Every structure is written in C-alpha cells, then in structure tokens.
C-alpha cells in the first residue's frame, strides 16, 4: 500500500442510492466502495460475512453473546427473556449490529435498518472492528479467529452428549459453578495453546484418561516412606499461587469425573476467547467509531452519498458517542465509544494540526504521519496502556474529566484532580487504572491445598486499596466448593493484614474436627 492517499481519479461520483430502503445490491455496492476506501487507509481485515437478520434473530444473538452456536444453559434463556422484555416494552432499541471475532468475520445487520444505517454498520463492524480483531496484539496472541466457530460446535455437541448421559440438571449444576468462576478461568500472562475442534475431539478421550491419572497421582494414599513424608510436609501445593482457578480445579480437584473436567475446560476456553474483548473495549469501540466516521465522511467527500444520508448518519453517530455528564440521570459511567473515539480523533488532529502543547506532551506524535500513528496505537495496546499513553490534555478538557477520591473512612469525597495543568497526569493515570482488569476484578488466587489433611482448598484475596469483596462472595465460594468437593477457605488480605475470612461449608464449631480426623484416612 502506498503511504500517501492517492487523490481519486474521478473526484465526484454519483450517489450510490438516494433511497433509504436498502437492497442486497446496494449493500454489496457500499461494501465494495467502503472496502476500497478502507484499503486506502491501510485497514487490513479478515474476509467479511455479512448476515441480514430479523429483530427476533437479533435477540437470539444477543442472548448468546453474539455467538452463532452455543451450548444450552438457562442463563442464556434469562438473558433472552430480559432482552425480549425490554425490547417489547420499548425500554431499549437493539444494537444495529453484532460482530464476531472469527475468520471470516461475521457481522449481523438488522433488516429494520435503513440504507444509511447499513452503510454505517458495514463501516463500523466490517472494517473497524474487523481490522481491530485481526491486528491488535491481544487478539493476535490470545484468540484464534479461524477455530472459534468449530470449537463452539464441539462444545455444544459435548455438552449435549453429557446431558443425555448424565441428565440436564447434573450438567447444569457444573456449568453454573463454572460460570460463577469464568472470570477466573483465564491465563493472564501465558498464551493459551490454540484450539481446534477436530483435535479437541480426537484428543479429548486421551486427555480424559491422562488427566484422571494425574489427579490420582496427586491424591494417592499409599503409605509413603519417611523421607518422602518429610519432603511432603515442607512442600507446598501449589508451589506458586495460581490465578487461573478454573484451570487449577480442572487439573487437580480430587473427585471430579473426566466429563466434568472437560466441561470446566470448555467454559475456560470460551472465557479465554472473550478475555481480550474485555480488555480492549474502549480501544475497540473507539477504533470502530473513528473509522465509521472517517469512512463515511470520505464517502460523502467523493459524492457516493448525498446530504440526507449524511444527516441520518451524523445523528446516529452523535447518539453513539454521546457522553452524559456525571450528574445526568442518564449517566452510567464513561461511554467507551466516546472516550475511544475522542482519543483516536485527537491523535489524528495532533498529527495533522499540532499545537505547542502537543509538541510538549507528545513529541513522537505531533506532526507525524497520522495513519502510522493510529495503526501503531491500535496494534500495540490494551485499554489501560492505551489511555495511559495517548489520553491528551485536550481530550481531558473536552470531556471535562475529573478525579474523585472516595475513602470509606472519610465523610467527604475529595476532588483529587481536574482537567488542568497540575491535574492532567493524575486524571490520566486514575482513568487508565480504572480500565486495568486486575483492579476492576478482585485479585483472587489459589494459594494452598491441604494434600494430606482435610483436602481443603485455600484462596487468597489480595485487596486493592482495601476494597472488600462483594456480598455474593459466599455464593461463589459454594460453587467453588461444588467443584472442589472439599472445604474451601478464602482469606482476604490488605497488605499483610488479614481482614476477613470465609469458609464453605460453614463449620459451626470445633466438634466437626472429629470428622476431619476421620477424613484423613479416607
């Protein structure tokens, strides 16, 4: 691709259509034109598969997180009823599109959309999100777009098979427990091995027997020699704390059947697939919004669309990137579309029309090639580092960002910093921290298993800023207990200080010790 954008040979085209009704021919034509412009902007995408669906089908897609296939579970039914109810009562409109990180990249378009909306969605999903999926480092290293659909099919079949053999309710219970822990079923630092449905099926049986063997080895009760037992006493298990709780349970829980371990694995793999999306919401939506805005404006500049079309587009665009202020009744946190769109737009502005402030804050960016800068920013960051790196004073001023400090022990909130010179850096790092998954989710790890004793599992919660766990914690621990099969402890620490402890099942007093004593010889 050439570095500079070639001026189009024929600067003004006739509008592709002036009607607001879409047709398949027009969709294809828009896709072709938008695709060509996208390539001028060096957007590198997977092939697109655009699927036109009805609003009912959109509701179906909603309730399965957009996945075209999925195993059956009541929670998806709940999601569906909720969506349906809200939609029918007019509380919410449906999203105009859903896009799936797969190869080819599947985008759903609703039949109710007008032509302008369809074009917007094509620009947003098929070129914005699609290029993000293909080029962001998190997606590149952590997900496998070619295999996901096959894997979902495998998962669906496997769950159905288990339901036939062991009963829907039994399977549901295991899945409930896995879902409760799915945020703790991801490897945060290690790249997971790629998934492939064919191999999954082939290896699954082999794995079953092998896994059981491993577990047996860990839990063997054959008498051990004295030296060994000395070793055992000093040996901790696991030797290092484990952050992937589901993985740990899958590999080490003493009582699980092989099929139950496989179910854990399925939930884990799917959670892993969604993990990058949870870490790049601002970037992903911002990137897609930036590109639909840029692509549609280019369409207009070259005469492919008329003014009416642009008016409709701009009013939708404005609604998407609207950020209600903190004191509005519509306020529910920072709108990731707005934040991301503003940062990417400002990056382009800094390249094209740098100010003195920009040269001071972003010497590497100001006045440089904007396409190089944007692609680099999209490819190499996640929300947290992206904000830390690129949130400019201008965006902070435009959005009037301010940072509030809330200490449980103080009767007042304190305004720590606002969008002014002394405050920029503080606001920026506070906001970046807000998008750090490890501060957004409590840090809970497996620290110990009482191998020779009561087989209990101990988890450790390391508090961030002394923020305690929520009230559902006990319920989640019950799920951990269901999977682990023996007592589960959770200790919550602020620094080195033990703040609170949970235990499931809750022992009332010491009289249970006798039963523990017996367990030792099981």
């Amino acid at each position, binding site marked *: 691709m050439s570095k500079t954008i070639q001026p189009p040979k024929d600067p003004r085209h006739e509008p592709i259509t002036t009607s607001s009704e879409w047709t398949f021919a027009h969709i294809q034509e828009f896709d072709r034109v938008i695709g060509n412009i996208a390539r001028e902007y060096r957007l590198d995408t997977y*092939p697109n*598969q*655009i699927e036109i669906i009805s609003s009912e*089908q959109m509701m179906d897609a909603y309730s399965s997180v957009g996945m075209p296939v999925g195993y059956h579970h009541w929670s998806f039914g709940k999601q569906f009823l909720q969506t349906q109810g809200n939609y029918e009562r007019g509380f919410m409109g449906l999203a105009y599109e859903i896009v799936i990180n797969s190869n*080819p990249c599947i985008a759903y378009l609703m039949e109710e959309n007008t032509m302008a909306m369809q074009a917007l969605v094509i620009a947003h999903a098929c070129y914005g999100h699609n290029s993000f999926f293909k080029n962001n480092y998190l997606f590149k290293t952590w997900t496998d777009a070619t295999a996901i659909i096959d894997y979902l099919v495998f998962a669906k079949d496997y769950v159905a098979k288990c339901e036939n053999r062991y009963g829907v309710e039994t399977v549901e219970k295991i899945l*409930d427990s896995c879902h409760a822990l799915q945020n703790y079923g991801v490897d945060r630092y290690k790249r997971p091995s790629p998934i492939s449905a064919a191999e999954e099926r082939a290896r699954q049986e082999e794995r079953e027997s092998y896994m059981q063997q491993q577990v047996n080895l860990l839990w063997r009760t054959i008498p051990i020699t004295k030296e060994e037992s000395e070793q055992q006493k000093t040996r901790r298990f696991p030797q290092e704390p484990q952050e992937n709780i589901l993985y740990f349970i899958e590999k080490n829980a003493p009582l699980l059947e092989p099929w139950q371990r496989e179910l854990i694995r399925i939930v884990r793999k799917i959670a892993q697939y969604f993990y990058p999306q949870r870490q790049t919401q601002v970037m992903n939506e911002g990137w897609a919004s930036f590109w639909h805005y840029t692509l549609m404006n280019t369409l207009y500049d070259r005469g492919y669309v008329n003014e009416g079309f642009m008016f409709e587009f701009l009013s939708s665009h404005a609604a998407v990137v609207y950020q209600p202020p903190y004191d509005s009744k519509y306020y529910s946190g920072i709108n990731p579309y707005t934040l991301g769109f503003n940062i990417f737009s400002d990056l382009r502005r800094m390249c094209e029309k740098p100010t003195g402030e920009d040269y001071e804050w972003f010497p590497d960016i100001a006045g440089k090639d904007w396409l190089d800068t944007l692609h680099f920013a999209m490819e190499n960051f996640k929300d947290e580092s992206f904000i830390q790196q690129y949130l400019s004073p201008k965006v902070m001023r435009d959005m009037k*960002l301010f940072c509030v400090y*809330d200490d449980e022990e103080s009767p007042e909130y304190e305004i720590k910093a606002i969008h002014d010179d002394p405050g920029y850096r503080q606001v920026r790092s506070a906001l970046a921290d*807000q998008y750090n998954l490890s501060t957004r989710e409590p840090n809970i790890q497996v620290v110990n298993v009482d191998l020779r004793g009561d087989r209990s599992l101990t988890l450790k919660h390391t508090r961030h800023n002394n923020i305690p766990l929520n009230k*559902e914690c006990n319920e989640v621990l019950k799920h951990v207990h269901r999977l682990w099969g023996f007592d589960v402890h959770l200790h919550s620490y602020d620094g080195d200080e033990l703040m609170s402890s949970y235990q499931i099942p809750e022992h009332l007093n010491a009289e249970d010790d006798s039963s523990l004593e017996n367990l030792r010889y099981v």
Partner: protein
Amino acid sequence: MMNTYVIDRRLNGKNKSAVNRKRFLERYKKHIKRAVNEAVNSRSITDMEHGESISIPADDIREPIFGHGQGGRRNIVNPGNKEFVSGDRIAKPPGGQGSGSGSGQASNSGEGLDDFTFNITQDEFLEFLFEDLELPNLVRKELKSMDDFVYRHAGFTNTGVPAKINVVRSLKNAHARRIALSGKSRRRLKEVSKLIEAEEAKDKTLRNKNLLLDLIAEKEKLETKIGRLPFIDDFDLRYNLSAKDPVPSNAAVMFCLMDVSGSMTQATKDIAKRFFLLLYMFLRRNYEKIEVVFIRHHTSAKEVDEEEFFYSRETGGTIVSSALRMMQDIVKERYPANAWNIYAAQASDGDNWNDDSPICQRILEKEILPKVQYFSYIEITPRDHQALWHAYENVRSSFPNHFAMEQIVDQSDIFPVFRQLFQRKVT
C-alpha cells in the same frame, strides 16, 4: 477484489433461544407457579386465553461472581465537570450511594433492585396451571386444543402418503401418459404393419425379401419400444387431498352452584374456582357457544355475576335445595333442554340443613338430571360426610352416567372428578 459475502439469514429459524428459555422456566418453576396461581385467582374463569406477565425478585436469579464490594479507597474519574477544582471536598450523601460512588457500581446496583419481569404464553400459562392440578398429558393437550376438526375431501394433489393414493386417478394419468408418449411409435407401427401386410399380400415371387425382413425387424423394435414404457410412473400418482373443517357445535350452558355460607372459606372457594374453570375449558372445547350461570346460596339462592360469586362474603345457614330449585327455574325459563346442552357443577363443604337433603335428592332425580348432560358435585372438606353426601350417593346409584361426585381435600384431588366427566365424553 471481493472478499465479502452477504447472506440473507432472515428465513432461518428465529427460535434459537427456545431451549434456553424453556430451561429458564423449568428452573424458576416455583416462582412462576406462584404467579400463575395468583393470576388464576384474579382472572375470570372465562378469561384464560392469554399469557401472563411473571415477576421474579432479581436477587433470586442472580448469577454470583466475585466482585468488589462497597468500601475501601478508590479514585473515580467522571466526565462533565462543572464547578469543581482540585482539593474541593463534598459531603457524601447519606446512604453512601452517591454520584461519585463508582462508575460500574452505580448502574449495576441501580438495576439490581428491580424485579425480573417477563411474559409467558397462554400455552405455558395453562401448562403451569394444569401441572398443579396434576392433569395427565393427554388431557392437557385435549384441553388446550380449542377446536375439533373433521376431514373433508378437497380434490387431489400430486404429493402425499401412500395410504392416500387415489387409484382411479393415478391409473387414468398413467394411461394418458402412455398414450401420449407412445403416439409416434404406434403411428409408425401401424404404417409398418400395413406395409408388411401389403408385402405379404403380394405373390411369393414378387415379394421383396429384404424389405420384408427389415420391416419385420422394425416392427419388433417398435413393439419392444412401446412395451418399455412404464405402466405407471411416479408423476402419474394422484393423492386424495383432505381439508380440515371445524366441526360445527351447539350451545351449552354451564351452571356453577356454590355454597357461600359462613363455613366456606376463601381457600375452599379457590379450589372450587379451579374446578369450575376446568369444566368451563372442557366445555369450550366441545361447544361453540357457552353461557355460564352462577348461582350461590346459603339459606336462599341468588343468581350473581362471577365477581360476586367468588369473592363476596356471606354468613348464615345452608339450604342446598334453594339453589337446585333456582337452577330448575332458570332452565325452564331460558335454557330449554332441547336447544341447550346443560352442565352443572356444584361445590360445597357438605353442610346442609338435615331435612333439606332428601329434598335435594328428589329435585335432582325428578327434575334436573333428566334434563342435564352431566351434573358433578364436589365436596371440599377434610371432614366426615354428612347427610347431603349420603343423599347424593343415592342419586349416583340411580344415574351413574349423568352424575359424578367426589370429595376434594386439596387442588390435586380435583382431577379425578374431572376425569370421570372426561372419560364419558371421550368414549
């Protein structure tokens, strides 16, 4: 360079979530049943033709996950600053949950307080209702299907099942096809036959032997060609087509008789209501037009509307015959037995003024039972039977086909009574 495919999926099934939805309903059966029961109590028995909106407390269907609770220290970034400068201090609103209490939290807990509300369809509504009444599946199905159909001949079609083949039509088609397809060959055959005849008619010495042999060979070829035409082929087949026509049915009237004396509690009335409801639905299935007459009685009887029938409170003694007399009068006046199918259901706790029971027996045997299709009596009581029950037992022995009686202690006992009624109609 095209690397985009546009696919129209609108024709694909749209009920992909049906299984998950069903799982959800199954899981929260208890909640839904409670809601259905409440709905039955607040609805008219003639109003069972729509679904219901169900609410479940959001806490009950929560899927727990680890998350941050309230408290600790945190920095929150918000947009839209108007008057704040660094170092400002703002008193926290009482209750803790204020504007600055965390971006994610505010929205989550805001929604959390609401009930989870969704709709179930009429079918599901009835299903949950019937489940409490312990109706067998067959009966449930029969009750839910509103109309009866009769199959009427409606011409022919070229697709169908073997059992519906119309032989005459199919053979006619086959014949026509054979004529049409073999026309050319047969015409030629005729010509060839004529030529052979002409040739053979000639004197032996004049015959052209080669020509004759050729002609004979051609004749044989044509005959096998005609013979090869299949006698009957797939596309000859015609099937009888039948259309469903709704059965025209007559009118029925349903009398609901209930004791509303002081001894009948609201719970007893609710059970009675379910019984009347079932009877109503059963009748609706069989008759095009149904009228319902509500008669309540203590010492005297009164015709009332449904609301008053089930919910107004009365006290006093009980004379059952007053209600029977009133029914008898109403039948005489408004529902001549030759034009109406008459059904009656009576609910009581079994109390009656002792001298009145023989009178009831007499009215039933002499006046009412000869005119009605069916009379059912339910006694809703856990106690021993009294005179009324014994009098009715006599009635049952003399009219076993038109009279049913049963004691009911709770909801699940309703069905056995109903079954008798049903069996009689099915056979």
